[in-house]
């Protein structure tokens, strides 16, 4: 396959042929779909559609005025005794953390789940400088042990069964093979409690940044984010700057949507509002509080009015669960940490459309993602826009000429009905008769190329009708009907 191809990468096959993996992913995403459906049903949440519209509008307003809200947010964080740090990219974030760790003599970092830090490979960057950082979300911890990337935005270890986890624990922690999930959890807890007690720095992500109060809002189910942000003496929240929302009073809209869309929970088990370090008279909380606001290409996305909406994403993962393509090819076949429909939309925007040009084409455009998106990102439309950008990019690079010629010729034929009809008749005469009337299992090998080969590799092919509709229609009119 050429680098500029907009067709299926061959690595998909391994996933598609792995029956156990297929079942694990299909079952897990199916369960999440079912739970979400119940949680947003009209009898439990009659205002669901209204909430989606509101969430979209709030994000739109906030991001249309992001410069203003960033300043407002910083003002409030500073007033609470915290500090806002702007970082252009991953290396600036790593530099900041490393410098701070050195100044404070920190040796161990605990981390709660954050896709933003995955995006910039923060753990690897820190490890490179001998600074240990331990993931404390159970799924992320398992993946860190196994040296794997998250398979899913919300459920990072969605592809692993408890037997997989047992093997990872035995190999990496030297414990006995344990396949009972509750006991596996206790094993992880035993390790992680010690890390929480020893850690000097806790790094978290952020689900929302509230501009008018300077709060960092984190939702979670395991309680590890609470420990991460309160036990160590330094807390650093690393957040993409698009996580901003204008007002605290807008939060309920998002909190109602996020848990329901992600896991079908009306609310997650814990919702934390963090604004600043421990104050005088308070008994816990960090002594120092930093919010790192990451750009890493976001200002470029922001500049494009059409595609800006891809920044509205609140990382619920619903589009992954509902995507029939994600459910087949899984999370590790996408080129970046963001997989599924939202990954297919944001990755080309961050990396450039020329890098993995097939990505926006890896969709049947069924629209299930848009239907379930809690902030109404029109993902199919964005994919179509990106497809157009890819073909333009390829034309500029003088690639993909064969396909372009086919579509040019096709368009010309479609504007000339007589030639269109003639070509149709020729095709009908050209195709052999099949064993079953109208359907072919194969074609002669000289014809078994390109799209025909692709089609026939999976299913039988309808033989062009010997008489087209228009030909039938003419005789019908002549016959006086």
């Amino acid at each position, binding site marked *: 396959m050429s680098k500029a191809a907009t067709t*299926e990468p061959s690595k*998909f096959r391994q996933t*598609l042929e792995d029956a156990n993996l*297929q079942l694990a992913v*299909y079952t897990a995403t199916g369960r999440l779909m079912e739970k979400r459906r119940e949680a947003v049903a009209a009898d439990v949440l009659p205002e669901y559609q209204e909430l989606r519209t509101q969430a979209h509008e709030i994000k739109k307003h906030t991001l249309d005025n992001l410069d203003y809200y960033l300043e407002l947010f910083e003002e409030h964080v500073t007033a609470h005794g915290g500090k806002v740090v702007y970082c252009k990219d991953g290396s600036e974030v790593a530099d900041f953390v490393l410098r701070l760790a050195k100044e404070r003599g920190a040796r161990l970092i605990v981390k709660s789940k954050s896709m933003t830090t995955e995006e910039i490979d923060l753990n690897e960057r820190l490890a490179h400088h001998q600074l240990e950082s331990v993931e404390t979300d159970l799924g992320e911890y398992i993946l860190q042990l196994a040296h794997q990337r998250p398979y899913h935005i919300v459920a990072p270890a969605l592809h692993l069964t408890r037997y997989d986890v047992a093997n990872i624990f035995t190999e990496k922690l030297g414990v006995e093979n344990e396949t009972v999930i509750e006991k596996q959890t206790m094993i992880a807890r035993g390790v992680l409690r010690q890390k929480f007690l020893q850690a000097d720095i806790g790094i978290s992500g952020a689900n929302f940044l509230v501009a008018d109060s300077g709060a960092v809002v984190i939702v979670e189910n395991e309680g590890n984010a609470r420990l991460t942000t309160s036990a160590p003496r330094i807390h650093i929240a690393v957040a993409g700057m698009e996580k901003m929302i204008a007002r605290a009073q807008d939060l309920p809209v998002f909190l109602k949507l996020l848990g329901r869309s992600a896991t079908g929970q009306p609310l997650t088990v814990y919702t934390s509002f963090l604004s600043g370090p421990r104050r005088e008279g308070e008994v816990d909380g960090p002594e120092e509080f930093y919010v790192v606001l990451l750009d890493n290409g976001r200002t470029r996305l922001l500049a494009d009015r059409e595609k800006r909406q891809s920044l509205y994403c609140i990382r619920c993962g619903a589009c992954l669960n509902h995507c*029939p*393509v994600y459910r*087949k*090819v899984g999370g590790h076949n996408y080129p970046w940490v963001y997989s599924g429909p939202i990954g297919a939309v944001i990755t080309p925007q961050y990396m450039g459309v020329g890098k993995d040009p097939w990505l*926006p*084409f*890896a*969709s*049947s*455009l*069924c*629209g*299930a993602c848009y*239907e379930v998106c809690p902030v109404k990102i029109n993902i199919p*439309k964005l994919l*179509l826009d990106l*497809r*157009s*950008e*890819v*073909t333009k990019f390829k034309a500029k690079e003088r690639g993909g000429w064969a396909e*372009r010629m086919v*579509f040019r010729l*096709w*368009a*010309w034929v*479609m*504007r000339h*009905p007589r030639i*269109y009809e003639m070509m*149709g008749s020729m*095709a*009908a005469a050209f195709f052999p008769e099949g064993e079953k009337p109208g*359907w072919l*299992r194969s074609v002669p090998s000289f014809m078994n190329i*390109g*799209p025909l080969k*692709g*089609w026939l*590799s*999976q*299913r*039988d*092919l*309808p033989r*062009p*009708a010997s*008489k*087209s*509709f*228009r*030909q*039938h*229609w003419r005789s*019908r009119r002549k016959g006086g009907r």
Partner: protein
Amino acid sequence: MGPRVALFVTCIVDQLFPRVGLAMADVLERIGCEVDFPEAQTCCGQPAFNSGYRAEARDVARHFLSVFEQAEYIVVPSGSCTSMISHHYAELFRKEPEWLDRARAVGSRVVEFSTFLTEVVKVEDVGARLDAVVTYHDSCHALRELSVKSGPRRLLGRVRGLTLKEMDRAEECCGFGGTFSVKFAETSGGMVRTKVDSILRTGAEIVVSIDSSCLMQLQGALARANAPVRTMHLAEVLASR
């Protein structure tokens, strides 16, 4: 006398499944419509649009608009092609105000076949009879872009002798997706096999849909699996008697 309708049979029906177009004409004539077939029609342009070739799609769309500009109603045996015209032409002609106006005018008169029956002429019983157990596949663009969900089922409900058995994954994509089906053949094949399993679980003899492109994907996969299930377009079901 019913309204005057122009058929846009779509290129797939014209070239591969003409019986679907004939069935649609039969049903429309039976309920009293005056049916016309503008012979200069070809395709709506969707294959090029979905593959990222906007200029080529625009050329074909202009041809479509010129052919159908005079029609009172344009009835289409496909949700996907209907949506291309009524929804996506606006995006294609975003920067061409004159064509945008023409696209909007024509787009407002394009109606998917089942919707034409249930919402425009408001006929649900067309006098059809088919002794069979069928299941219905929601095609994605009809379902999610045109909100077609209950109409086809109500029409099926009025067919004498017919039993509708819902499948557990009626709303899941069949994996066709136009050029996706050949560009991502193995993924598409995996998707349709999941769908076929769901169809087989119902025990139905026939899968019905309102899009011939989905049915081509489904029939192709059913045939490949040697499954004893056949596909029928809703128009063919309604034309049966």
